[in-house]
């Protein structure tokens, strides 16, 4: 019992670190691409509240949204936001990683207000039974 609790604590900290690492890697790549001119818009990943109805067995209790926001540069059209979402959703490895790290919602937002799109991650990968 104690061993189990101890493992859970260690796993919680490991997940936190993996989440931070994933967001940092995404932001670094986005920054490099923007600076070198590959991407016309600077994207930034962050953790958001998420949608409570999208929960699955790996979901975090709070803050289960993975948000990508378009910052400086050209303002993106809705089709472009959807395309960014599709690129992420069609990358099975990334979707699996997002799910096991506790995210259940993918959000792609424009710079201003709440303009953007939202997807339920569990629709894109078969999960082990509860």
């Amino acid at each position, binding site marked *: *019992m104690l061993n189990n609790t101890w493992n859970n604590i260690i796993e919680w900290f490991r997940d936190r670190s*993996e989440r931070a690492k*994933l967001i940092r*890697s*995404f932001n*670094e*790549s*986005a920054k*490099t*691409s923007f600076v070198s001119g*590959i*991407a*016309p*818009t600077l*994207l930034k990943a962050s953790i958001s509240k998420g949608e409570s109805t999208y929960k699955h*067995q*790996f979901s975090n209790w709070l803050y289960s949204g993975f948000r990508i926001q378009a910052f400086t540069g050209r303002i993106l059209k809705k089709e*472009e936001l959807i*395309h*960014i979402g*599709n*690129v*992420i959703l*069609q*990358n099975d*490895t*990334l979707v*699996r*990683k997002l*799910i*096991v*790290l506790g995210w259940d919602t993918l959000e792609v937002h424009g710079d201003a207000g709440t303009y953007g799109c939202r997807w339920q991650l569990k629709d894109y990968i078969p*999960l*082990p*039974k*509860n």
Partner: protein
Amino acid sequence: MNDTLINDSIKIINTIIARKVEKGESINWWMWIAVVQFLIIIYLIIKDRLNSKNTEKLRFKNESLAKDIDFDNIINSSFNSTKLYDELKVKCHPDRFPIDDEKNIIADKIFQEITKNKTNIKRLIELKEEAQKKLDLNF
């Protein structure tokens, strides 16, 4: 004589029973042993069930975390894959090779791969090179 002996024996037995009931040692001990055994069995059953579920989840989690992600490719694909996909789907369409059967088969294979990887620019570039070599195309 006999009566006094029987009376004394009964008195002694009564005193012993009264003491034992007062202490309640024998009844409590057995009850507690049974309770502990029951709890141990319940704990082992729950632990076993939780372990089998956790193993499957844990395997899925470890497999997912072990793989690396190419974020540069994701960002690049987010902005540049559509243009390349549109170009490739026109140039590599199997209908463009109606006479040459061999090229038609190769184009069909490449076209299917292009459709499957339309949001993966790294793979699309590889397919473009393959099309240039095998289908003699100029981009």
